[in-house]
């Protein structure tokens, strides 16, 4: 196994708040890696740094052997890193199919992207296949804004996948959706992973993470706390501390003083 995506020693502050403080993360090629941690531990900020939405104060992001630190989001995407957002972001006033077609152009120059006609049949067929994969083909001609929350999650997953990224970053794919759909999303991820796609998943639903992920990294207060397989992580006392606020008062004071 080789490391596909690597974040080393990332730090990023917002005003006085250190959202990330020397954080490290490795994603193995072909794995499903989970990223968990209490609210405010910096998971989404790390996602933003990796995908170019936020520039890190220090540290490097390496993808497939190349340094991509500070790349703009469109370049990161062109490199092969796709992501979804915690609060799903779709193009509400375009049809579902049009949403899918926006993402296809990741590897072409801007001039060609602008001058050629909307989409070839191959691209439309490809988009429809992915809609079929997530099970919303029948909604293709509807305005994306009229979809339910769960359908939006599926659409967002589909239009990230349509561009065939090497690694997909999912920010809370199971957040706010019902159990049936959670299982369905987990199944899709598993199927794609078996075909060789790499995933990095931020999620609060422990069952989802523990069942799905090969490796889990726990973050706390802007840094990586523990990394290991789900069983190891589950039994690690540090993790419990991080989630439940910790039993050792002295240690907490020390951490606060350092931070």
């Amino acid at each position, binding site marked *: 196994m080789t490391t596909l995506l690597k974040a080393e020693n990332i730090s990023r502050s917002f005003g006085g708040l250190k959202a990330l403080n020397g954080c490290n993360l490795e994603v193995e090629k072909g794995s499903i890696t989970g990223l968990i941690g209490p609210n405010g531990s910096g998971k989404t900020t790390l996602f933003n740094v990796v995908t170019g939405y936020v520039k890190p104060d220090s540290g490097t992001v390496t993808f497939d052997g190349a340094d991509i630190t500070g790349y703009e989001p469109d370049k990161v995407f062109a490199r092969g890193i796709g992501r979804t957002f915690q609060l799903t972001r779709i193009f509400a006033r*375009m049809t579902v199919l049009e949403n899918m077609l*926006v993402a296809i152009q*990741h590897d072409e120059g*801007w001039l060609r992207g602008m001058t050629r006609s*909307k989409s070839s049949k191959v691209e439309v067929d490809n988009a429809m296949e992915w809609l079929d994969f997530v099970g*919303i083909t029948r909604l293709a001609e509807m305005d994306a804004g009229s979809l339910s929350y*769960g359908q939006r999650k599926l659409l967002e997953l589909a239009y990230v996948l349509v561009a065939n990224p090497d690694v997909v970053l999912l920010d809370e794919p199971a957040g706010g959706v019902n159990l049936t759909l959670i299982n369905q999303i987990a199944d899709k991820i598993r199927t794609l992973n078996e075909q060789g796609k790499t995933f990095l998943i931020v999620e609060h639903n422990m069952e989802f993470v523990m069942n799905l992920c090969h490796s889990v990294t726990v973050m706390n207060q802007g840094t990586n706390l523990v990394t290991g397989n789900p069983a190891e992580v589950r039994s690690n006392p540090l993790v419990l501390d991080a989630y439940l606020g910790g039993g050792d008062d002295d240690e907490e004071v020390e951490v606060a003083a350092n931070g």
Partner: protein
Amino acid sequence: MLQKKNLWWLLGVAVLAAFPLIVTNPSDTSIGVITLLFMACASSWNMFSGYSGYIALGSSVFYGTGAYTMALISIHTHMAPGAAMFWLVPVGGLMAMVIALPFGWIALRVRRHTFVVITIAVFFIFQLAAINFSFTGGTSGLALPFIQWGFSYYNVPFYYVALGLVIFITIVSAAVRRSRFGLQLLAIRDDEDRALGLGVKVIAVKITGFTLSAFTIGMAGAVYAMFVGQIYPQFVFDPVFDISVALMAFFGGLGTLTGPLLGALVLEASQQYLTVSFSNGSLYLILFGSLFLVVIMFMPRGIVVYVKDRLNKSAMARAAVATDQLAATGAGSSS
């Protein structure tokens, strides 16, 4: 279906083309020329601002640039007054694009209200420049070569050139809407950051759209200058023009193909007509204002969108029999 739609477009063009043949009164055809120029401008403005959601209020920068290009070149090359001057119309459009490039490069770095404010600021810079530079003639403006076409005939060539601009921009606008470029503009309107994260080169797309939309507005300005024969900074760099063009597009339906055309047709024609009919006092302003209020209150997304929604709803009602099919969306939906 598509065939039927095309027929409506052809009918529209036919009616507009027949207008000066039926209505020969010069004061009426003159309203026609101005209205067509506004239709072209509103449609062109919509092609960028309507599609991308970047509400630009500096269109008269392009209009004025086109007008001054026409005036300066025709004066300094001692052009023979006449139809040959129409060759300068695309030149005016190109000059507007040359201005639009740095304008867009500066203004399109910011979004929403800040963008609007910057476009207004750039507009004032241009108006002040036109007033203060000597080559623009300052406040006394510029007089173009005087075209000696007969009084009853004078408006007609302008009318058809303006109609040509309307047809041109409608075709371009439709082509953009169908292209991947148009798709990118719409994606930017809905969620620019998300579009960026899906590989859309938003800066390049925005600047291209902005520059492209300047072309037709610049051409319209050039036709206007030639039509009126004498231009002044305060009339070609006019804040009312900036706002009118945007309002026409909003009125008819922002981001639609027919909306800005319809909006400009209704608003400009009725404004001109009301001005002439109620020359006594400002009654026309009250009527004009009420018309606007009614549309904004009851059709906030514009006339075209309102009518479309209505038609869709009645179609949906007829299809309600098949609702159970819709309700059984099952598997994928979480609702």
